[in-house]
């Protein structure tokens, strides 16, 4: 990073390779929009170039990048306010896995995550996927370490509730669909 800071643009290529996918996933899980996420990743690297002198050597580079990433997203939505909420159609495709149950769980988890308010989704993404330390997140959000921990716990609580509600709804729908077709749900007895 010091080389980038001192003007060696080529070094930025190495950083791009290292950070493009994590940043893209941060944005896509947060916004549910692949195209926008790619645009924002480009914006982050443009800003790294522009503001590289503001990086202080010795401080965690990853935290600095995510600070830029947060600001880029905030600026984008300030300019272009969102008109629609996240649609389930925007969810990324779930890759086929060994177990159908696991696949269903991933789908439910993605939907539950989308239901969380953005700041709760963001804090979970930062600590679970971007692997930032709580101290780094506290610096990023401008709050106390204990506040970060409380927020993570609350976000997790809410995610659990949303996940279970969705799981229940899905189960009910299946039962209703089965009843409508006059087919007993799996495991149920067929009473005539």
């Amino acid at each position, binding site marked *: 990073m010091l080389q980038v800071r001192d*003007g060696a*643009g080529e070094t930025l290529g190495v950083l791009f390779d290292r950070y*493009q*996918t994590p940043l893209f996933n941060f944005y896509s899980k947060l916004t549910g929009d692949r195209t926008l996420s790619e645009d924002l*990743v480009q914006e982050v690297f443009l800003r790294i170039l522009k503001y590289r002198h503001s990086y202080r050597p010795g401080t965690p580079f990853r935290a600095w990048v995510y600070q830029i990433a947060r600001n880029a997203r905030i600026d984008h939505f300030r300019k272009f306010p969102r*008109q629609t909420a996240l649609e389930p159609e925007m969810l990324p495709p779930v890759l086929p896995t060994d177990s159908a149950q*696991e696949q269903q769980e991933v789908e439910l*988890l993605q939907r539950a995550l989308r239901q969380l308010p953005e700041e709760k989704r963001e804090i979970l993404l930062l600590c679970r996927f971007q692997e930032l330390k*709580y101290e780094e997140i506290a610096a990023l959000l401008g709050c106390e370490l204990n506040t970060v921990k409380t927020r993570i716990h609350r976000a997790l*609580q809410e995610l659990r509730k949303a996940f279970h509600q969705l799981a229940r709804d899905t189960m009910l729908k299946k039962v209703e669909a089965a009843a409508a077709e006059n087919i007993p749900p799996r495991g149920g007895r067929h009473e005539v």
Partner: protein
Amino acid sequence: MKCEHIAELLPDYLQGRLSAEQHHNVEAHLEQCADCSEEVVIWRKLSLLPDEQPSPASRARFEALLQAYQAGRSSQAEGGSEWWKRAFTWNRNVFHWLRSPLGAAAWSVALLAFGVYAGLQVAGSKSHSQDLQAMQSELAGMKQLVVLSMLQQQSASARLEGVARSTRDQQLDPQVLSALLHTLRYDASVDVRLAALDALSRHGQQPQIHKAILDSLQQQQSPLMQVALIDLLLEWRDPDAPQRLQAFQQAPNLNPTVRQRVLWAKSKLN
């Protein structure tokens, strides 16, 4: 130990940052408390969420950005002579003026003056061909700045003008291209989006632009834009047109006129 106490320790537990004793206490609680243990389960399940990969075009866009940036830096570094410094400051001033309502007029005047100045410099000495080349590239950079700045204006007519200016060059600069694609997708005014579509479709022979335009079909809410994009699909005879139309037809709340257009386009393709 109660749930409130666990709540304080759980985030550190999840990252394995507790002392052995605290760790043991939390585990003991988790065995008895379904809610808390489910939170841990959910946390672990989050690792199941797939990692997505950005498109390969993303790297190419980054390279273009880097090249444009480095080209800008080197031409800036070459500008050692006095007239060059003056011209450079002048450019910056022009850029500021463009933000004012007098922007367009100021741009024309500045360009004219700049041209005369350049002419005088060249007439004065023939050995300035290198300077001239540098100045030409700087001029191209200025044009680019004008377009980029206009695309960000508050007024829709200024943004329209920005789109119109972007069509004057045969080659699209990567930054202008990126700004136009952004306008195509997110501009609040449908007129500006339509103009951006028109400007971009001139470069539809480039696969990257071709794909980006057609991909925007799924994002457009306005029937006008949807119809324009359907027509473009048909005009380009895109190999993916049938699949794209089929996917688009499934969109909920599709305007009846648009739906008719989709059916018409599909019949034309067959």
